[in-house]
């Protein structure tokens, strides 16, 4: 049904200024597409970390692609703070809309259901709430008048969902197993761009063993093949986390110059994409 397109064509289809939803580093981010966005010189992107952001987001921020990020955290995990994100916050060159993990999920679930808002417990007393004029505290309508304040969150519909899956089938369905936040992201977003390790024949939805971990082609706008497309992040049982690669990034990206050098070597140099694939 859907024929795969090239990674560079996929990056070209993401307009400047788009709101991109990205899964976290433990849940199948498409680092390959993030690198392609850097290469195409994307500008003014708004990132949504679902619910947190990691390696790909820090790289996009460092490369000047990002105007705003909405997330519950930006972190390189064991490799520490996200250096280009921290520098951008300090310099005031990025708008940060701080969120909290279940609020990201809730806003996407509201979009997934097509309702304008959903409530969430907790949050009251937090400055995160105080800095979100789009979050409203209302009395719970199921309690007596004016009692039991509860937070309402608006539906959030990203322009583009971006993630990496293990495989696509001949119908354009993609399989990624238990990482179902990617399904919610795809359902909630206007478009979903999915990179995969490989395309296989058949239809995952005809296979009871694979169907539950499949995202239907209904939600998938385009597929591109990107072998090791999550690298340096782990991909299920396919390949592990490349801690050395991320540590090297964290070290070099501490300075603007070091980041520029890293970017030239790993992303923008002519053979960078291929080298990154062979890097582990």
């Amino acid at each position: 049904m859907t024929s795969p397109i090239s990674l560079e064509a996929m990056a070209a289809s993401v307009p400047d200024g788009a709101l991109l939803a990205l899964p976290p580093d433990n849940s199948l981010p498409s680092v390959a597409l993030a690198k392609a966005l850097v290469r195409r010189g994307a500008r003014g992107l708004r990132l949504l970390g679902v619910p947190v952001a990691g390696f790909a987001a820090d790289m996009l921020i460092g490369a000047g692609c990002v105007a705003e990020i909405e997330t519950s955290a930006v972190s390189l995990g064991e490799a520490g703070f996200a250096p280009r994100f921290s520098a951008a916050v300090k310099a005031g060159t990025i708008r940060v809309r701080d969120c909290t993990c279940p609020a990201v999920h809730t806003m996407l679930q509201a979009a997934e259901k097509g309702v304008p808002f959903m409530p969430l417990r907790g949050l009251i007393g937090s400055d995160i709430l105080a800095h979100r004029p789009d979050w409203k505290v209302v009395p719970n309508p199921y309690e007596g008048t004016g009692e039991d304040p509860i937070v309402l969150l608006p539906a959030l519909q990203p322009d583009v969902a971006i993630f990496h899956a293990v495989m696509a089938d001949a119908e354009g369905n993609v399989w990624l197993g238990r990482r179902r936040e990617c399904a919610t992201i795809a359902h909630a977003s206007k478009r979903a761009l999915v990179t995969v390790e490989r395309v296989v024949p058949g239809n995952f939805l005809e296979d009871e063993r694979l169907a539950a971990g499949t995202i239907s082609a209904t939600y998938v706008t385009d597929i591109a093949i990107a072998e090791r497309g999550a690298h340096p992040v782990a991909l299920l049982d396919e390949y592990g986390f490349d801690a050395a690669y991320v540590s090297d990034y964290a070290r070099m990206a501490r300075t603007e110059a070091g980041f520029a050098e890293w970017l030239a070597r790993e992303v923008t140099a002519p053979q960078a994409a291929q080298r990154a694939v062979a890097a582990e």
Partner: protein
Amino acid sequence: MSDIRLEERLAAVLARLILDPEAPPARHIAVGAASPIPAAACWLVHKQGHPVRLSLLHKRSGNPFTEGTRELFDLTGQGRIDLFFLGGGQIDGKANLNLVGTGEWPGRSVRFPGSFGSAFMYAMAHRTILFREEHSPRVLVEQVDNISAAGVNEPGVFRRGHAQALVTGRCVFRFHPDRARFSLQSLHPGETVESIREATGFAFDVPETVPQTPDPTPAELALLRGPVCDEMLETYPEFCARVFDRKAAA
């Protein structure tokens, strides 16, 4: 037993707090990825034979969640998470946590990674143990610059639990949500009430006598160094190498 490492002592302290008979039962505990000492405490409780379910976030194989990361928060919303661990770049005397950053919002002086799920988990888990190894006036402050998650709420706000205690590299504080204050519960070896006062930016209550934090028992140490370490090797290889001198098989 001079060969007790601080990490082992802290894990044993946390394990006893988990099992505190005065606290609600800990049938299901969730532990974040960057928390090897709390994870060791949970495994210690488990290996002692207590029936506890552990959901270790970011565990690569055997990830317990099939709805993505949403499921932890849904479980907690349902009241199925009995205990959670939180830290903070800053923690203040009312148990407010700052995971966002210091200085002007959103952390223009020092930006921390972010609040993660704290603003929700802190209110919706049945109880939270605060853990921060660094015990200094920089971390334990009079008032946090930014509140990621509030220690207490106004009356009438739905909240399922509060901080039970704050464990640091120097002592254990008990938290009293009714008066929004910490009290000193025990001192790790080498600490005094005065040394704690100097290292702490917030005021706290001090009972007439403050006991020393007990050493881990030989049985606890044996479990930590053996079966607990076995369970943690995959997720926390560097921690196991450093604390237990153990490396994962290649």
